[in-house]
């Protein structure tokens, strides 16, 4: 259910909304979804899956988070279950009536033998918006993950809003990746300069966690001057990419994913 954040604070308070997914192995080689809870602007739909896993689409019933809103998506993949989550369209962070920043929290948990593909469309930071995104992933030792995050700074021809995005991933309780990118007006200086984004308007990461990477890490490599593929200190590979726009960013990330060894 969606309730205004800080209910009672009066008109202008944002929307608080929590959506939940639980994926469970059904014992016959497939995956069931005992929990699929939509909430207000966060609508979840089970869609046809090509393989044995379950597939869920996040459908934006309204636009993305506005100022003062607090959205949370929680996903849990139980032992041996397989879940793939996408979104029907890009999420657009917009300025709202309510004062203050919007928040978007993603909490993902994958048990041993489970596999999660978390591949939403881009997050677009529109002019005047102020959004803090936090994605935390907890993986058991033999869990598998493919996670993509893409940020687009402003719609076409527009200055970006303020966006702070943190991604924390743990395997067996051990942090293997902890990164925060802050950009847009009001962010600490230099975010658009030669050390950080240098005028690029699309930035993304693709993280692949597989138990095999502990013994056989990927080799570090480059895709031109705008993307690197690196082994992390843990059973994971990370692609980091910057590009002039969302389309070229997606091409780089797709190309990098295709370059990783098959399993």
């Amino acid at each position, binding site marked *: 259910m969606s309730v205004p954040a800080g209910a009672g604070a009066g008109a202008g308070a944002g929307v608080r909304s929590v959506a939940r997914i639980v994926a469970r192995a059904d014992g016959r080689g497939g995956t069931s979804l005992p929990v699929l809870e939509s909430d207000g602007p966060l609508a979840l739909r089970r869609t046809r899956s090509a393989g044995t896993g379950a597939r869920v689409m996040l459908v934006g019933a309204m636009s993305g988070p506005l100022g003062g809103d607090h959205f949370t998506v929680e996903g849990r993949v139980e032992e041996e279950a397989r879940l793939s989550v996408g979104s029907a369209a890009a999420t657009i962070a917009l300025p709202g009536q309510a004062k203050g920043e919007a928040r978007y929290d993603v909490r993902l948990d994958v048990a041993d033998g489970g596999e999660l593909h978390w591949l939403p469309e881009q997050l677009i930071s529109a002019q005047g918006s102020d959004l803090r995104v936090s994605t935390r992933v907890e993986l058991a030792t033999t869990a598998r993950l493919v996670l993509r995050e893409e940020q687009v700074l402003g719609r076409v021809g527009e200055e970006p809003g303020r966006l702070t995005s943190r991604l924390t991933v743990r395997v067996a309780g051990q942090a293997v990746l902890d990164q925060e990118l802050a950009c847009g007006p009001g962010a600490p200086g230099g975010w658009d*300069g030669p050390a950080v984004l240098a005028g690029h308007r699309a930035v993304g990461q693709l993280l692949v966690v597989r138990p095999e990477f502990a013994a056989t890490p990927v080799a570090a490599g480059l895709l031109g001057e705008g993307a690197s593929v690196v082994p992390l200190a843990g059973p994971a590979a990370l692609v980091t990419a910057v590009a002039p726009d969302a389309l070229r960013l997606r091409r780089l990330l797709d190309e990098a994913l295709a370059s990783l060894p098959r399993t």
Partner: protein
Amino acid sequence: MSRAALLVLADGRFPAGGHAHSGGAEAAVRAGRISGAASLEDFCRGRLHTAGLVAAGLSAAAALGIDPVALDRAADARTPSPALRVAARKLGRQLLRAARATWPSAELDALGREFPKGAHQPVVLGLAARAAGLGPVDAAYCAAYESVSGPASATVRLLSLDPFDATGALARLAPEADRVVDRAVEAARRAADEGLDALPAGSAPLLEIGAEVHAAWPVRLFAS
């Protein structure tokens, strides 16, 4: 101990090997992203608020006495580029050698036994500050300043930039370095209570990608 110990630790002539590293400036110069004093200043500003903030947080936390093994892991998670992890450990090993000779301490000896190939440099820096009788603010200042002074002096060599211009850029960044140190120390104090997630995790995509580009060159002037 004495405030002057901070000057010894922060001195560019302290024999810890930092002069061999450009902090990403060599790759940025080659890519045309640093071409003079103004772009150097903007590069340093971006590095200060990302890698510099992370390093200052780790150093302050180590100076507070938080477990260096856990801090080293936190540093790994905040350093996706393997080229940068290798550079940070090399610098850490060199700094540890110099610090143990300068301020003998059981904690520094233990760190050397725990990390024979070197711990992340900011963690060593924090423990070195502790051994020198300095506190978390001092350690954070050293780390924050090093995050910009390294690229500035490297760029003087790479572009034959006027050293006055490079020093001017560093001086203009001083107020922002103060704020970075405040944030880092506040985060380190919270990390002591709440766990290491409280430490800053600022990332700079082009520093990460540039470090891998740089590591692939057959010939380079600086190690990183």
